[in-house]
């Protein structure tokens, strides 16, 4: 048996996996056969422009179909759980202000975080508790997960538009500067 091409091993490994894999996990499988980092980037280059892309979010790699092909792949049985406007807004507050307590989320939104909203976000694997705030009651703080990045196709939290950019947008343009 000839020695397998390390690039093929990485390709097969990522193709087989349902969940994104870290560079470390890929390296562990590769062992002495090659260096995960350069191989991953080479593979990503080879798949650029194809129907399937090698994406990297939060340092974890996964093959995903190209977003522009979505219209051809819609299947009614596979839609992700819908996030309500309240859930999305809560998620946005967590994404931007993390780590953040429930009370802080409520202060930004001006309404109580309704029962089930945080549950749903934990359930869908988008947020997780992380540490406690050192104030009376030591409330749990919430952060977004690596799956959050994968779910929204972000390579890191830095991909989020900055709040200041969002602030200026459209509706609030000062009317032609007087």
């Amino acid at each position, binding site marked *: 048996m000839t020695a397998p091409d390390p690039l093929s091993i990485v390709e097969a490994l990522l*193709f087989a996996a349902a969940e994104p894999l870290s560079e470390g996990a890929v390296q562990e499988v590769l062992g002495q056969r090659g260096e995960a980092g350069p191989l991953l980037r080479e593979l990503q280059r080879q798949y650029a422009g194809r129907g399937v892309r090698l994406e990297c979010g939060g340092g974890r790699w996964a093959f*995903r179909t190209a977003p522009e092909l979505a219209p051809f792949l819609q299947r009614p049985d596979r839609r992700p759980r819908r996030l309500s406007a309240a859930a999305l807004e809560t998620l946005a507050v967590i994404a931007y202000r993390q780590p953040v307590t429930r009370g802080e989320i409520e202060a930004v939104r001006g309404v109580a975080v309704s029962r089930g909203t945080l*549950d749903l976000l934990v359930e869908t694997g988008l947020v997780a508790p992380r540490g406690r705030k050192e104030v009376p009651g030591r409330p749990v703080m919430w952060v977004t997960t690596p799956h959050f990045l994968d779910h*929204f196709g972000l390579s890191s939290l830095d991909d989020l538009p900055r709040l*200041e950019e969002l*602030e200026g947008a459209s*509706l609030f343009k000062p009317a032609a500067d007087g």
Partner: protein
Amino acid sequence: MEHRLSGAGEGGFVVELDGFSGPLELLLDLARAQKVDLAAISILALADQYLAYLRRARRMQLRLAAEYLVIAAWLLYLKSQLLLPPEERDEPDADEMARDLAERLRLLDAVRRGAAWLAGRPRLGSARFPRGMPEDLPRRREGGAAATLAELLRACARLGARRGGEVVRMPRPRLMTVEAALERLSRLLVGREWRELSAFLPPDYMELLPRRSALAASFVASLELARRGEIELHQTRPFAPLMIRRR
């Protein structure tokens, strides 16, 4: 800008304003109607718009959730302060309060745009898809468990719900009651010479907390005995030893 009011809330009669999940959001929407940069909105105009909005809602005989009314009251107060010249205000920081409100509205606005931006992303499962037939190859060490954080937290919540039946035993602290002190003082205080109150504390109450409790209880007991006319109290100056004797 006109808004429909509809939709019965959970309580049956309390009506949520259509499309607004809270007063802050309603305020934001009204602020947008001013069509200026949020930093430049007029809080006075905003207060008027908000109050007019609620008046319309009430004319339609809708009961408003309390939080809307709380904000209405607050805005009315803020407005009254802003209209006064600074030197006549009860609230010296009225301008700052107005700025804070504008700041909060800007933050909420930005966060809502962030949420809209997220909603427009090519989401996994609706615009991007993972492998449809994963082969379950990797992760050698994963002979382990398949359980998610959500499953664990749900199990925790079940425990929490069951906790009602649990009995918690706490060690009974050795503290002296006023009754015990009263009984002790009446019994031990004999003769008419002045003696220090602290001399009557039980010798086995030497730790800090029990000792303090014994002192406090004995003091209250001495006041009670003095009120009954059984003893006299005397102290030369504040914090000096408290002397007692039978009358």
